[in-house]
């Protein structure tokens, strides 16, 4: 018989759809509507994992997402190959489907026989603060002994080792009202809120079936109908409303600013034959005008010796298994409780044919009507009794109980034989989302619970998470939250409990393992030790013992831990504080968070119009900001060094062609354009003639170099500004900021034209010969078109802004053409250039050539603390203008100090040694450490044109140190070098100044 503990009828399962699931290689049988937990219980077993620290056998504690023990590795589609397995799925909420391959965690070699269980015997070693105490010293043990141990011990389950094969979707939505949780309060709230059809309502529930706790309820009636029927009717009404989106299998996991709600919808895992391409999960980001939190509550375990033995579960969970899933958690049940609600479990278990006893720590006179009802149903109830311990190892076989005297003494023990225990330590409202919203919690002593207090955002809590436990009151509270005063008449709920932190025992508490936090294996003893060692704030106790810090965020354990600490310190519970809840409410897959933003879509790559040609011609690429740029163009057998040496030679001896399209380009237009340029740049612009170019330098208001680039004046009122590749957005926004906020009187507008114009640089002694044949409407003669000039006309029949500029020192043109024509123009010029052995070159050669000329790159030589004078560009700073951005800062005393770092050349003594960029420079390496540093290397290359290595550096008072010998750090020590001027190459013939 494959399901010996399956009841013959009832439950929210579809008996027409039998299913099988693989569990540790064995086959579990069940039905659609089951979870892995209910199938395991149907098979007669509770053993579902080993614990994290002590490797104790663990069962199923809960029926919900608060489950701390039964964590499974699940391969969702083993038939589709690798990449669909993830760890730490809670067996209690995994919707079972044929084909799932599941396995338990934290054991070796098997769940039944786990060598790690020796930790349980060594447990005196693993006391509170164990990590802090044990791994302090000796230092040399850290790498080889401690760290590997911590790493091995710190993880729950095994992380997947292959890329996630699934795809994940995301969606943004707006709602007037978002309702979290579809139990009685949430359903009522959603119905009320959507009543008049004017509001968009989203109802999300983490479960795969709506109804919340009512799914476990076979006795309550609402307005004369069974609870399950009421749920069906409510759901049907909501489904029929066009203004309502109902989302089962959707966990609201994050409550952020201004009612920004994040939730994850499980789309595919539960589906048989999910079509290829269907997203596995969908991340929803909802902006809601109002959030109604109807998240329910969590039951607390009781804390007694061996309260973690398989077969011991929460009382409401036992009821859920019996009623919702139609499985019996055993034959003989002991219900251990300090409150009323567990009596409902006892009655339902009795009605389902189980042998049931109740052990209640409360005295008979403190109990409510539940006591009489249980006794009249024939259930043996021991009031005023404590549970001293549970018996059994891999399955509970009984509990030892004892009466409590009036003085708190523990009386004569007796053993109750059983194969399952349902325990209830009272209830904790789920205030996680309210706390995430930054609302303030308020302690309610009568409920022994923190409740939502002062709100920080537009939200309201309803039902059990609001501290309301009676069914008709819950429903009324839901309606009220949704804006209605509807009330119903429902069967009275057994409510009320007497909180007890640790059940009284006559055993030596130092030898007792009574678990508070099951997932992190924290016992009452650990918390007592932490308090004894002086930890009093709950935040410190948490970190020292790790209680409440596991993936379940202490949903079942927090209140027991808090109460225990408060009791030990003899302080009121709210004085201990409560912990801050943070997203996510339950673990979220990385896949859902990342969504489609992976691989090529992780970060969009900007490519130029010339990029396809570069790919086809074997370029190696490098990322520059978001751009992909050709780094160099190796020929067969060439490494980077050889390719760059060849490219550099070619530009100096004949002609090279370079894709400069990534340079930022901004058009500055308007009657006040020249005045605006005067204020934004250090240079004077009024006298720049139309058709002229100038190298512009831009400072921040702090006086430091911000960007540079060639600026062309196309008309009296129109400038074509170029910026560095990486600086384009920054420069544009800098201009925009000043225009809008400081000088709104200036009649100027600016437009980014980076994406409109491609730029092809043709550089070298033969550059003119390559370009000239294709140009029309422009006088190309030297006299008419000198260096640092711009002309508008046509090239290859398409419009061009043709710049006569050079960043190499050679004769150069920058052919700006509309991007759609750029590749064709490039190819035409390249074909013509073959007559002169034209050489395409990349960014590396561009860098070497400009360094040979001593031209700086902003962001390489400068680091946000360099003034124009520091980098030898004081000649670009107008002395005549009354003001420009950054001018006043240049006059601050610190900006004029003689020992500021200044740009110089630096030549290694060994001409074949290429210094490291970023290397520190010192005067005397024999000085004691720390050796005073006088500067650092900013750019360094091997220059084939110079026949040696060259470098630039920023050196304190550098211009006064020319020819001084210095020492530069290397990976091995120091190397000798000489300070020089920063111009390394003299161009023959035509003289250009960039």
């Amino acid at each position, binding site marked *: 018989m494959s399901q010996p503990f399956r009841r013959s009828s009832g439950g929210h399962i579809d008996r027409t759809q039998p299913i099988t699931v693989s569990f540790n290689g064995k086959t579990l049988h069940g039905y659609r509507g089951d979870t892995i937990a209910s199938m395991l219980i149907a098979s007669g077993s509770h053993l579902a994992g080993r614990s994290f620290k002590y490797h104790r056998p663990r069962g199923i504690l809960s029926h919900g997402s608060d489950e701390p023990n039964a964590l499974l590795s699940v391969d969702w589609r083993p038939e589709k190959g690798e990449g669909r397995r993830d760890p730490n799925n809670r067996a209690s909420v995994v919707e079972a489907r044929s084909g799932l391959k599941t396995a338990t965690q934290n054991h070796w070699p098997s769940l039944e026989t786990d060598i790690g269980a020796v930790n349980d015997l060594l447990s005196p070693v693993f006391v509170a603060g164990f990590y802090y105490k044990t791994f302090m010293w000796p230092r040399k043990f850290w790498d080889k002994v401690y760290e590997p141990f911590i790493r091995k011990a710190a993880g729950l389950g095994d992380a997947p080792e292959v890329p996630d094969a699934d795809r994940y979707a995301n969606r943004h939505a707006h709602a007037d009202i978002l309702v979290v949780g579809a139990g009685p309060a949430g359903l009522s709230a959603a119905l009320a809120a959507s009543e008049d059809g004017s509001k968009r309502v989203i109802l999300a529930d983490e479960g795969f079936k709506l109804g919340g706790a009512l799914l476990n309820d076979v006795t309550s009636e609402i307005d004369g109908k069974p609870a399950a029927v009421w749920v069906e009717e409510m759901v049907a009404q909501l489904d029929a409303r066009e203004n309502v989106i109902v989302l089962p299998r959707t966990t609201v996991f994050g409550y*952020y*600013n*201004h*009612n*920004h709600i994040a939730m994850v919808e499980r789309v595919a895992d539960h589906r048989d034959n999910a079509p290829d391409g269907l997203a596995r999960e969908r991340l929803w*980001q909802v*902006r*809601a*005008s*109002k959030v109604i939190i109807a998240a329910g509550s969590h039951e607390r375990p009781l804390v007694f010796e061996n309260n973690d033995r398989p077969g011991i579960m929460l009382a409401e969970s036992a009821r859920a298994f019996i009623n919702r899933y139609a499985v019996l958690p055993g034959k003989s049940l002991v219900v251990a409780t300090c409150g009323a609600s567990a009596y409902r479990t006892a009655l339902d278990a009795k009605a389902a044919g189980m042998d049931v006893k109740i052990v209640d720590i409360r005295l008979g006179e403190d109990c409510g009507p539940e006591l009489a009802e249980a006794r009249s149903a024939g259930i043996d109830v021991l009031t005023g009794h404590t549970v001293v311990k549970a018996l059994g190892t891999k399955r509970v076989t009984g509990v030892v109980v004892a009466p409590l005297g009036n003085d708190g003494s523990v009386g004569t023990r007796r053993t109750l034989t059983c194969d399952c225990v349902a325990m209830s330590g009272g209830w904790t409202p789920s205030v996680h989302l309210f706390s995430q919203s*930054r609302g303030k919690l308020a302690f309610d002593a009568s409920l022994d619970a923190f409740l939502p207090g002062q709100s*920080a*955002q*537009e939200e309201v809590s309803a039902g059990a998470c609001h501290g309301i436990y009676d069914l008709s009151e819950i429903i009324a509270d839901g309606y009220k939250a949704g804006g209605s005063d509807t009330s119903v008449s429902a069967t009275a709920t057994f409510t009320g409990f007497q909180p007890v932190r640790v059940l009284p025992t006559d055993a030596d508490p130092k030898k007792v393992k009574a678990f508070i936090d099951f997932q992190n294996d924290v016992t009452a003893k650990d918390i007592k030790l932490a308090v004894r060692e002086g930890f009093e704030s709950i935040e410190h106790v948490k970190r020292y013992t790790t209680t409440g810090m596991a993936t379940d965020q202490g949903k079942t354990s927090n209140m027991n831990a808090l109460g225990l600490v408060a009791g030990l310190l003899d302080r009121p519970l709210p004085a201990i504080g409560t912990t801050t809840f943070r997203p996510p409410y339950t673990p979220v897959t990385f896949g859902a968070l990342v969504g489609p933003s992976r691989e090529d879509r992780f970060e969009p790559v900007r490519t130029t119009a010339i990029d396809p040609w570069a790919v086809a011609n074997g370029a190696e690429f490098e990322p520059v900001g978001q751009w992909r740029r050709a780094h160099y163009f190796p020929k067969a057998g060439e490494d980077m060094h050889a390719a760059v040496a060849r490219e550099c030679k070619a530009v100096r001896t004949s002609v090279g062609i370079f894709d400069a399209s990534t340079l930022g380009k901004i058009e500055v237009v308007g009657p006040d354009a020249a005045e605006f340029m005067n204020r934004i740049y250090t240079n004077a612009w009024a006298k720049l003639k139309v058709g002229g170019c100038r190298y512009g330098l831009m400072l921040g*208001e*702090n006086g430091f170099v911000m960007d540079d680039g060639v600026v062309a004046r196309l008309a009296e009122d129109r400038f074509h500004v170029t910026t560095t590749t990486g600086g384009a957005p920054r420069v544009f*926004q800098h201009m*925009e*900021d000043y225009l*809008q*906020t*400081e000088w*709104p009187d200036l009649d100027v507008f600016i437009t980014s034209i980076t994406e409109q114009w491609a730029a092809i640089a043709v550089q070298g002694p033969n550059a003119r010969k390559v370009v000239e044949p294709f140009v029309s409407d422009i006088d190309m003669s030297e006299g008419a078109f000198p260096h640092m000039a711009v002309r508008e006309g046509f090239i290859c029949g398409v419009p061009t802004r043709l710049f006569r500029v050079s960043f190499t020192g050679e004769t150069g043109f920058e052919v700006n053409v509309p991007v759609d024509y750029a590749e064709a123009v490039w190819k035409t010029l390249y074909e013509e250039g073959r007559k002169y052995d034209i050489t395409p070159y990349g960014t590396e050669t561009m860098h070497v050539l400009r360094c040979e000329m001593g031209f700086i790159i902003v962001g390489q030589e400068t680091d946000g603390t360099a003034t124009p004078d520091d980098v030898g560009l004081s000649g670009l700073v107008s002395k005549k203008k*009354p*003001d420009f951005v950054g*001018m*006043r*800062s240049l*006059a*601050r*005393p610190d900006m004029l100090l003689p020992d500021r770092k200044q740009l110089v050349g630096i030549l290694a003594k060994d001409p074949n040694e290429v210094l490291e960029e970023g290397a520190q420079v010192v005067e005397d390496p024999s000085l004691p450490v720390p050796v005073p540093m006088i500067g650092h290397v900013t750019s360094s290359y091997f220059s084939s044109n110079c026949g040696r290595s060259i470098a630039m550096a920023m050196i304190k008072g550098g211009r006064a140190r020319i020819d001084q010998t210095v020492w530069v750090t290397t990976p091995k020590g120091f190397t000798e070098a000489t300070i020089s001027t920063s111009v390394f190459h003299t161009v023959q013939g035509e003289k250009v100044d960039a």
Partner: protein
Amino acid sequence: MLLIRCPHCGNRPEIEFHCGGEAHIARPETPSEMTDQHWAEFLYYRTNPKGMHAERWQHRHGCGRWFNALRDTVTDKFAATYEMGSPRPDLAATPAPARTA
């Protein structure tokens, strides 16, 4: 993610905006006539209050316009957004605006 009301476009998510620091610090008319101390104060000294803070925001990935906002630095709630050049609203004198959410 904050929800910010651009005075020109309405409520938009924070990801579309860029914060430009404290508002109502006008660039001096004649910087060259300022003392080093006053210039340093203009450049670097900011109030950094706990509570209501007037700050510059730009709807960078929307209309591109700069505007000012009053934001509570404790709760992140925006009390007002207003156009560049307008004076800081007197919150005590006006009824509380509708919540941004």
